[in-house]
């Protein structure tokens, strides 16, 4: 029985854990400006994260080693350090965006200015990282994050013309008022929001923390192949409700409150309150994941003891890096940079950093010395190679597009 419960828990956590501030903002912005004509980017991102997470989860289960430990080994310390610097910058940027997301969500609940909430959020986060056991942390916020299913309920209650929605997805048509470069800029943003590197660092390090082994591969695959696609559907429903309510009302999302408006339209106060629980839990959970991933990446590069299965004193440098990353993230939000813009930068830079860790994991997942007979199958490799090309194209195109479109204006 416990295996089934474990499986269900894993899947639910993957759904709840998938959506973060990047998905909430980017899907909201894109839905309100492009309708579902960019849904293909989210779908690509979801397929990509399934592939990437499954590979790195399998590598973690078989080798018992984290992503960055292997990245250094496969690229050498010099290229590994460049890789670590870029990925750490993106993860820390995402950490700041997630903390901004928690603050904005709590502001919507309490109408206390979000900047006043940020230091308290930092404090609570430090306590949770310091004291709460890894599995409790992941499960609670993963389950609570399910409250974002309110977007699915809202979509249902809006009685949309489903065939039209499907048509928008299958036959994407760029709105006339938006330029091609902005269209593809947001395609990369969506792709980066769905296929975020930190989710893979966290997922694989979690596998090592929970001592996964070959027998856990079934649960790992279920988490990935059921949980993430459902999480992706949640992202799509955020964009769908925005396209149904905000687009016709000529509202382009520029702050988090607009993302929740369609829920109030469709389901009133109760559904809105329920969704706010999801906003706070999903962003808080994602903040924890990114915070820990900052620690994981640095500790795994240098070979330090890391992880939450030991007391903080046993992993002193790991916890110090997490603490410093937390201080950086809180300070970044307190600079009063617009948290929504900060989030957009974080998802675009996620897309830039993606190949740096995707490529080494792809190589290791094929190394018989490491994986024995659990190497990639022929189909996985074919798909993984296609995504390697996609990931590199997105990474190379991201920054030029960001400059050309002045971050999507």
């Amino acid at each position, binding site marked *: 029985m416990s295996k089934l419960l474990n499986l269900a828990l894993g899947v639910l956590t993957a759904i709840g854990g998938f959506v973060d501030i990047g998905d909430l903002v980017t899907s909201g912005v894109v839905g309100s400006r492009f309708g579902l004509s960019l849904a293909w980017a989210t779908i690509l991102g979801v397929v990509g994260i399934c592939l990437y997470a499954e590979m790195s989860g399998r590598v973690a289960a078989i080798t018992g080693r984290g992503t960055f430990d292997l990245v250094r080994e496969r690229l050498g310390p010099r290229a590994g350090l460049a890789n670590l610097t870029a990925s750490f910058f993106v993860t820390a940027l995402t950490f700041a965006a997630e903390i901004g997301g928690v603050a904005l969500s709590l502001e919507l*609940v309490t109408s206390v200015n979000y900047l006043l909430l940020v230091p308290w959020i930092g404090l609570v986060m430090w306590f949770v990282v310091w004291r709460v056991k890894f599995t409790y942390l992941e499960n609670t916020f993963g389950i609570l994050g399910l409250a974002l299913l309110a977007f699915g309920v809202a979509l249902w209650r809006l009685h949309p013309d489903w065939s039209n929605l499907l048509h928008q997805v299958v036959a994407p048509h760029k709105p006339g008022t938006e330029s091609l470069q902005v269209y593809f800029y947001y395609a990369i943003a969506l792709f980066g929001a769905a296929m975020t590197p930190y989710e893979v660092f966290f997922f694989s390090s979690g596998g090592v923390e929970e001592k996964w082994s070959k027998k856990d591969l079934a649960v790992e695959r279920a988490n990935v192949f059921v949980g993430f696609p459902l999480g992706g559907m949640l992202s799509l429903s955020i964009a769908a409700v925005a396209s149904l309510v905000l687009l016709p009302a000529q509202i382009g999302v520029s*702050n988090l409150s607009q993302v929740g408006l369609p829920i109030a339209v469709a389901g009133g106060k109760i559904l809105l309150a329920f969704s706010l629980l999801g906003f706070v839990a999903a962003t808080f959970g994602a903040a924890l994941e990114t915070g820990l991933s900052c620690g994981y990446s640095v500790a795994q590069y240098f070979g330090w003891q890391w992880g939450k299965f030991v007391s903080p004193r046993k992993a002193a440098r790991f916890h110090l890096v997490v603490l410093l990353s937390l201080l950086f993230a809180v300070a970044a939000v307190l600079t009063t940079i617009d948290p929504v813009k900060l989030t957009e930068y974080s998802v675009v830079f996620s897309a830039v950093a993606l190949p740096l860790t995707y490529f080494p994991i792809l190589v290791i997942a094929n190394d018989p010395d490491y994986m024995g007979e659990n190497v990639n199958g022929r189909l996985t490799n074919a798909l993984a190679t296609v995504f390697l090309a996609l990931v590199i194209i997105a990474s190379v195109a991201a920054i030029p597009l960001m400059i050309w479109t002045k971050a999507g204006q």
Partner: protein
Amino acid sequence: MIRHGRSIGVGLVTIALATSACVGPATTIAAYEGKARRAAQDALSAVNTALLGVRIHERGSLLENYFETMLSQTEDDISSVQNSFDSIQPPNSKSSDKLRDQLDNLLSDGVSGIAQLRISARREDGPALVQAATQLAPTAKDLSQFVESHGG
């Protein structure tokens, strides 16, 4: 390619953050008009958000705190739209100056209109809220027209 990873990454990041954050001066009349349309669109989005919020709130579908926060976040948005538009140096042409004054008035109406909504909402003064909303509605129409007439 991997060997120079670090220096390329750092360089690109600084360029990106620098150029995308600041608003450069407008060079041509057409570019200025484009920026004006862009500003009008963003302002229209903020005004529509406020008006939609009032309508849902009047229907009792919006939590108080959520409604107040939404109005203040939207007020910040439209204020920053006005600030960044006003900071653009217009090309010296009569038509640009006329365009600038016309839009600036609309933006000011929008900012003060949403501020009025936020004040009434915080006071939970229903009638004042509805009254402020009806006063704000024409601004939305004018902004929408401005966008249409300038290649929206």
